[in-house]
């Protein structure tokens, strides 16, 4: 049997069934649970980009440094693929939160 082509969004995982652990918070910055992530995949969000854009997990203060691997694992498990088969997500500047007055300054050492 060939692997499912998740690019064809006609593929379905069937209806969402609640599972133990769904209440577990995976992204603490924006309080997203394992169940939220699983439900998003069942709703057709078959890539990490789409899951993140839908739920904002990984886009809060820590920028995914804490939840990134967990979310990847949950999405991969739902799709039945290896976590490494999922795409890399984009790291965004600035690498840690920076105040506007600092980011906006043109002065050396400010």
């Amino acid at each position, binding site marked *: 049997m060939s692997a499912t082509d998740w690019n064809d*969004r006609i593929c379905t995982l069937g209806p969402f069934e609640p599972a133990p652990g769904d209440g577990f918070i995976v992204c603490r910055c924006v309080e997203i649970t394992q169940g939220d992530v699983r439900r998003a995949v069942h709703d*057709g969000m078959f890539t990490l980009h789409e899951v993140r854009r839908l739920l904002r997990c990984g886009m809060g*203060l820590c920028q995914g440094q804490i939840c990134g691997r967990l979310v990847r694992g949950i999405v991969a498990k739902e799709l039945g693929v290896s976590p490494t088969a999922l795409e890399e997500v984009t790291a965004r500047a600035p690498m840690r939160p920076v105040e506007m007055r600092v980011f906006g300054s043109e002065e050396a050492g400010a």
Partner: protein
Amino acid sequence: MNNTADVIIIGAGVIGSATAYYLTRKGHSVIVLEKSPFLGDGGSSRNGGGVRQSGRDPRELPLAMYGVKHLWPGLSEELGMDVEYCQSGNLRLGKTEEHLAILRGLTDRAAACGLGVSMIDAAQARTICPYLSEEVIGASWCPTDGHANPMLVTLAYYRKARANGARFITGQRVQAIQKVRGQARRVVCGDETFEGDTIVLAAGYGSRAIAAGLGIDLPMNTLLMEVLVTEEQPPMFSQMLGTAMADFYGHQSKHGSFVFGGSSGFEAHNRDDGRPVNHSITAPCICRGVMGYFPALAGTKIVRTWAGWLDEMADHIPAIGPVAEVPGLLVGCGFSGHGFGIAPAVGTVLADLAAGDTPPLEVSAFRYDRFKAKL
């Protein structure tokens, strides 16, 4: 797998996805082909979320006003997802007499088209938004403007269209549209071919190369624009904000982050290595713009920045509608940096045209062949 549908849509941005949804609502079969592995990865997930009528080209105003009146208010309910639509007005700010003259011009032109927009003084502006810099001396005010979350709107259209039976395929780059007996019918992607009675070309800038294959030129360029997002803050104000000089624009989102967009002035000359990446000078420039109008935000931290391409048409408004030389082809592209706010209305119009129904608005101002040489 059946590669034939009533309508084939090229591009799964907010325009393609909205069109797909409105077509499925009418009971039509739809296939949407998207070159990116991710849905809505173009401008549609990268924009500032403005749902504005003020500041628009008069030709675009009817679409903007129709959407705000008839489509945006019920969109979350209709799509079964809170898309964070917030209608609490747009303030466009000025600090000098020259700024106010610009704002008055914009306001007069929009008011002449029937939009409720007016000039207000500094005290009125501060009543609406108490955090304005002391330097602000006046503003234009459109109380029916607003904002929404672009990532959610695009994915909500996709999710609902998919639930209604639309087939979306990502990682599927369209190379050509081919005619069959004089009618646009076949859509070619590598060794896969799709067929539809109507083809909707909604591939942003990518539409230009595809249309060129049919001998149609859509005169547009790309332009990179940038956005930044702050850490979450307690609710401060809910309006959409902009300035006479376009120093920045933005709003506070539902979860508390501020989303601000802007430019450095070097957009036409930015390096382009094929990916939409930030330029180091732009976000700091946006920060200076924001602090100049909202000193209270100087200590707020930036957590993310990103960049996205606009598909800038020669006269800054899109091409929407049928192509006379190619029966069966509809275009919807070239939104020139303001296609998000009008996406529900444009999707409605394109779905009506594709289905052979009469759209609620006339779109001949957006003809693809309106471009004439200067002499």
